[in-house]
């Protein structure tokens, strides 16, 4: 007999799972003998002789015999009938082992009387199933003993908690109750009204809805025999003991509801309260207004009411890091209250629409730089009017707008001849035609150009032409995610750039290792300060070497996230040459490990002297570098992000 070490398998939870298997088994049932592949669980159950019929039969027997005590599931059979040995199994003692039959027991075979001698080992496990008694020698117990035990059971149940596995059968909770098929008997009842022969007295009787299943099955009992066996079909089921509502019984993890508000939140509420009483808030100028704005943006608590804290007619610069809650009219008041703005930055200004933007057009005459993240409601005519109204505009930086189209671009270029900084990031309508317009700005105009993340990439040739037209004066260029760009963009386009300090060529999948390497070797531009070449999995050691040779001495920010195969030597090169590095992102570079990081932080041993190393490194990101362990060397002042074994502390 197979000893069942894995006791929990017999728990109801598994059976709940197995329940899902039941219906198919039952429907497939008796017609054919075809057996498809089965899970380990079904194999096991089949081997042990547990079938849906036995389970359902037990369930059927339980039902009519419930009194307010016997809330236990089919594994506990504490009914007082003496219909047969297989059904009544009161325990010998309440406190000693509950030798369960059925699901709680090791007694897997469908035997009806074989005592299990070796059950002491299951003592502790049986303890869990408080309500599942089954003695080894049940037949020897007299009725008196049964009654006594039942009384003990009652007492025990009164104070003990229910075994969770028992409950699962009984409650009406749709999540955890048995499937409907379990409630009815395994063999389906013959239709009401038909004739059946009683299993006991062989007499013919009419099947009604009160017909009881015979015990032992199969068969049905006529009304007389059913009554004789103690199961009164007409007896109203005893009022069920008040149970916890299914909603309560479900184990739901409640989040702490009365959270203590943070001090920051409390202060912001107070600020909102006193917003009208400016004097009482004291001299804001003394404090860092920007810092306050950042603190409030951190949890999106900038509202139309407390935004007024920042308004001042003498303001020339205004930055809101999160203007989500500023409604259209709130933005209008923003303009009214700060008419002398020269520089305005609104992140997440989704509620900015034509109506409020109109005021931007008319009432901010001194505006020279505007930076908007998410102004998707502003329509094309408004953009055009804005351009027309601000001929002195120097900075136009917008992020995410599907409505900014070619005509707007044209208007911008026509009216704002002094444009120095242009960002059109994540612009839906970006195309080659746009690039032509930008080219019209002429050389010596733009210093900052960001065209990254278009919905559709611009072509190589158009970009190259653009570079030849405006590239000469650029100090910052970002063309990330224009995936049609190739090596020729680098060699033919970027060669026009002689003043670049910051370059973004991320997500350009057609760039090759050799191409990039060749480019950096022959580039006339002085060393870069910032380079973002992330997500280009083709690039490897050659490119990195060339980059470090070209810009290594000046590079402060380097991002090569996604360069999966870059070799260790190339990585160490970063440490050898990149003295000024402050921020480094080497995510998913699989060859980064603790030793490489050590070389970066401390330098390498050259003839006994430590040389190189990135002494100024403040931020190091190693996301996806699974060879960097928690033992990775750290340095004071360095923030290390992305070590896989680091666990979030709070």
């Amino acid at each position, binding site marked *: 007999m197979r000893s069942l070490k894995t006791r929990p398998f017999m728990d109801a939870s598994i059976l709940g799972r197995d329940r899902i298997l039941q219906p198919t088994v039952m429907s497939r049932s008796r017609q054919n003998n075809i057996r498809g592949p089965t899970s380990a669980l079904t194999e096991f159950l089949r081997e042990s002789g547990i079938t849906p019929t036995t389970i359902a039969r037990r369930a059927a027997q339980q039902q009519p015999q419930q009194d307010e005590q016997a809330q236990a599931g089919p594994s506990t059979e504490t009914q007082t009938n003496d219909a047969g040995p297989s059904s009544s199994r009161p325990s010998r003692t309440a406190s000693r082992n509950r030798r369960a039959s059925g699901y709680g027991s090791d007694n897997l075979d469908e035997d009806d009387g074989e005592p299990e001698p070796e059950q002491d080992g299951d003592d502790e496990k049986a303890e869990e199933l408080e309500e599942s008694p089954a003695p080894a020698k049940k037949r020897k117990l007299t009725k008196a003993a049964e009654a006594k035990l039942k009384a003990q059971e009652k007492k025990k149940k009164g104070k003990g908690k229910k075994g969770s596995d028992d409950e699962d059968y009984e409650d009406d909770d749709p999540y955890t109750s048995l499937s409907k098929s379990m409630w009815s008997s395994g063999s389906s009842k013959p239709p009401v009204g038909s004739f059946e022969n009683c299993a006991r007295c062989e007499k013919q009787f009419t099947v009604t809805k009160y017909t009881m299943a015979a015990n032992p099955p199969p068969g049905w009992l006529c009304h007389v025999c059913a009554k004789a066996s103690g199961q009164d079909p007409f007896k109203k089921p005893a009022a069920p003991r008040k149970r916890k509502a299914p909603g309560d019984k479900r184990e739901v993890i*409640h989040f*702490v*509801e*009365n959270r*203590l*508000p*943070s*001090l*920051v939140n*409390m*202060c*912001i*509420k*107070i*600020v909102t*309260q*006193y917003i009208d*009483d400016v004097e*009482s*808030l*004291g001299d*804001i100028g003394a*404090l*860092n207004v920007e*810092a*306050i704005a*950042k*603190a409030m943006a*951190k949890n999106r608590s900038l509202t139309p009411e407390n935004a007024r804290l920042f308004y001042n007619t003498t303001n020339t610069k205004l930055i809101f890091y999160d203007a989500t809650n500023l409604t259209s009219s709130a933005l209008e008041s923003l303009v009214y209250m700060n008419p002398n703005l020269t520089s305005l930055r609104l992140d997440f200004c989704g509620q900015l629409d034509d109506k409020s933007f109109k005021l931007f057009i008319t009432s901010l005459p001194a505006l020279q730089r505007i930076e908007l993240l998410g102004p998707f409601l502003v329509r094309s005519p408004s953009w055009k009017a804005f351009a027309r109204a601000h001929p002195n505009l120097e900075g136009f930086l917008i992020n995410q707008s599907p409505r900014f189209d070619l005509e707007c671009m044209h208007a911008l270029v026509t009216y704002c001849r002094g444009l120095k900084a242009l960002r059109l990031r994540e612009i839906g309508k970006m195309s080659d035609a746009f690039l032509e317009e930008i080219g019209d700005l002429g050389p010596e105009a733009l210093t900052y150009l960001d065209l990254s993340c278009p919905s559709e990439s611009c072509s190589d040739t158009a970009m190259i032409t653009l570079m030849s037209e405006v590239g000469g004066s650029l100090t910052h260029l970002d063309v990330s995610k224009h995936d049609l760009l190739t090596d020729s963009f680098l060699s033919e386009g970027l060669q026009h750039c002689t003043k670049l300090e910051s370059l973004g060529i991320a997500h350009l999948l057609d760039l090759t290792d050799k191409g990039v390497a060749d480019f950096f070797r022959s580039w006339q531009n002085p060393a870069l300060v910032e380079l973002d070449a992330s997500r280009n999995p083709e690039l490897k050691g050659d490119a990195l070497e060339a980059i470090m040779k070209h810009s290594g001495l000046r590079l402060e920010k380097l991002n090569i996230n996604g360069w999966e195969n870059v070799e260790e030597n190339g990585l160490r090169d970063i440490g050898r040459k990149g003295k000024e590095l402050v921020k480094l992102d080497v995510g998913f570079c699989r060859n980064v490990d603790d030793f490489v990081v050590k070389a970066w932080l401390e330098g390498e041993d050259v003839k006994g002297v430590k040389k190189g190393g990135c002494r100024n490194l403040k931020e190091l990101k190693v996301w996806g570098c699974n060879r960097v362990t928690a033992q990775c060397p750290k340095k*004071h002042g360095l923030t290390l992000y992305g070590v896989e074994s680091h666990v979030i502390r*709070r």
Partner: protein
Amino acid sequence: MDVDTEMQSATAQGTEESKENEWVRINSNDGFSYLVRRKVAQTSGTMANMLDPNGGYAEAQTKICTVDERGIVTEKLVEYMCFKSHYQTVGPKEDIPVQEMQERIPPEIVLEVLLAADYHEM
């Protein structure tokens, strides 16, 4: 100095619990000083990191946190920390007098307290 090392060795052998009950000092930048239990100081993320013996910061050795704010602002921070550490452990049925705490912050200093609270992660 001797007292410090003595305290150190004693606490090194102490259990987590007795560590929680240790006193730590919070200094303001204008000479005021507050003594609180370590548990209270740890309601502030920044201070918890400062006092963490594994963190390698000097404050862990001296058990003194310096807050770069005036005394009156520091006092409000300490008051909030006591309030929070006390009510963190209270059961879900109990009422927490949040409004009272809020009323105790005068508007004259609220902006300074806001920035200090943000810095100290509380």
